[in-house]
C-alpha cells in the first residue's frame, strides 16, 4: 500500500492543508491538535507511507495518534514496510509530535525514516516510543533513522535497530533485557538534565536542546518517565530551560 498524507499549519494554527490517504488518516481534534486515526492494520511489508508536516510562523501544531502503530509481517517477498516522516518548523512555529508507540510484531520488517528541520526560533518536541514484540512475543525487525536539524545544523542523528537481524540488540549495549524504549527530543529548550531512576536520563545535546531516553521491560516505565516531560512540554514548554 502506498499512501501520502500532509498537514500544513499556518499562523493561528489555520490548517491550510489536511490531506489524508488510508492508512494515514489525519483528523483535527482540537484548536492545536491533529490525531492520526488508524486506517487498517499495519504497516505491512511492502507498504510505503509518507507523512509531510509543515508548521509556519505563529502556528502551534500537536500531532497525536489514537492507537499504537503495529508493524506486521505481510508477504515475505515484498520489501520492508517504510514510513517516511518529513517535518519543517518555521521560526515562531511550534510542533509537538506525541504519537502512541510503534509495536514491532514478530516477523515484521519495518523502517521509519524521520527528517525534521526547525528554523532558528522554532520549537520542537519530538517523541518516539518503540515496543519490541507484543506481549510475550519475540520482536520483529525495526530500524528507525532520525535526523533533527535546528537552525541549519544537525542537532540529533540517531539510528536504532532491533529484532533478529540486528546484531547484539538485546545485549547490554543496546536494550539489554528491555523491550520498550522511548525518546523525546526537545529544542531549543527542554527539561533539566537528570539521570535515573531506572534506565532513564535527560541529556543536554551538543546543540540547543535535550534528549530524554527511557528503556524498560515494557512500555509502562517508559511512559512513567517520559509522559510527564511530554505533558509539561505540551503545556508550558518554553517556561523551562536547559
Amino acid at each position, binding site marked *: 500500500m502506498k499512501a501520502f498524507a500532509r498537514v500544513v499549519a499556518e499562523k493561528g494554527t489555520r490548517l491550510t492543508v489536511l490531506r489524508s490517504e488510508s492508512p494515514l488518516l489525519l483528523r483535527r481534534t482540537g484548536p492545536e491538535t491533529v490525531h492520526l486515526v488508524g486506517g487498517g492494520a499495519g504497516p505491512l511489508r511492502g507498504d510505503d507511507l509518507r507523512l509531510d508536516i509543515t508548521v509556519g510562523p505563529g502556528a502551534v501544531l500537536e500531532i497525536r495518534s489514537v492507537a499504537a502503530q503495529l508493524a506486521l509481517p505481510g508477504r515475505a517477498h515484498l520489501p520492508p514496510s517504510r514510513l517516511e516522516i518529513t517535518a519543517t518548523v518555521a521560526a515562531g512555529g511550534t510542533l509537538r509530535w506525541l504519537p502512541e508507540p510503534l509495536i514491532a510484531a514478530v516477523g515484521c520488517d519495518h523502517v521509519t525514516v524521520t527528517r525534521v528541520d526547525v528554523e532558528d526560533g522554532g520549537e520542537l518536541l519530538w517523541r518516539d516510543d518503540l515496543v519490541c514484540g507484543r506481549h510475550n512475543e519475540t520482536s520483529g525487525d525495526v530500524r528507525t*533513522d532520525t*535526523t533533527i536539524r535546528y537552525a541549519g*545544523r*544537525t*542537532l*540529533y*542523528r*540517531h*539510528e*536504532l*535497530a532491533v529484532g533478529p537481524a*540486528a*546484531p*547484539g*540488540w*538485546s*545485549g*547490554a*549495549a*543496546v*536494550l*539489554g*533485557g*528491555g523491550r520498550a*524504549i522511548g*525518546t523525546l527530543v526537545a529544542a531549543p529548550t527542554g527539561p533539566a*538534565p537528570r*539521570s*535515573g531512576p531506572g*534506565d*532513564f*536520563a535527560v*541529556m*543536554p*545535546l*551538543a*546543540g540547543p536542546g535535550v*534528549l530524554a*531516553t*527511557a*528503556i524498560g521491560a515494557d512500555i509502562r516505565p517508559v511512559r512513567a518517565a517520559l509522559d510527564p516531560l511530554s505533558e509539561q512540554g505540551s503545556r508550558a514548554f518554553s517556561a523551562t530551560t536547559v
Partner: protein
Amino acid sequence: MSLATLLVLADGRLPSGGHAHSGGLEAQVSAGRVRDLDAVAGFLRGKLATAGLVNAAFAAAACARPGEWADLDQGLDSRTPSPALRKASRAQGRALLRAARAMWSLPPIGRDVHQPIALGVVASAGGLGPQEAAVAAAHGTVSGVASAAVRLLGLDPFAVHGLLARLAPECDRIATEAAARSDRPVDDLPAASGPLLDVGAELHATWEVRLFAS
C-alpha cells in the same frame, strides 16, 4: 600501506589513555546486566554494531577527507547525546593526538576532537588508508571493553580473548562497510546507537567512586 604501522596504531599498549575507559561496560556491570562471559559477548556484539560502526566510519572519513574535520567532529556530536560520552571521546582524542605527535608528523588539527577523528588523522599521518583506520577503530571499540571486562568481572583472560578472536571477522566486516560509506555527506554517515550506552554513561558519571573514567 604498512601492516606493521597498523599494528603499532591498534596496539593496546599505545599510551593513549584507553586503559582508563571501559567503553560503557562498568555501568552495565554495576546495573547487574553483565555478570558472565556470555553477557560480555552480547555487549561486545551490540557495541561493535553501533558505536563500532560509527567510530569506524568517522575514522575512515577523517582519514580520507582532510579539511572536513570540523564538520565530521560536529557529526559525532550529533550522534553522541550523552555529555559524559562526548567528554570521554574528546579526552581519548586528546590523549591519542598527544601520543601520536611523538610518532608521526601530524597536520594542524587542534587539540579538542572526538577520538575517531583523531584516529583517522593519525592513521593518515602514519601512511595508512581509510580501510585501515576503520579496522583500527572497530577493533579498538571492542578491545578496550574486553580488557576492562577482565578487570571488572575477574573473567578468565584467555576466554575473553577468545571472544575477541571470534569477533575479528565481524570487525573486518564492519570496517569494510564503514569504509565503503565513508565518502557520504556527514548526515548520511552511519548513526547506529546503543541507548543503554548513553543512559549508562550518564548514570556512571554521577558515581563518586568508579574504576574507569567511562
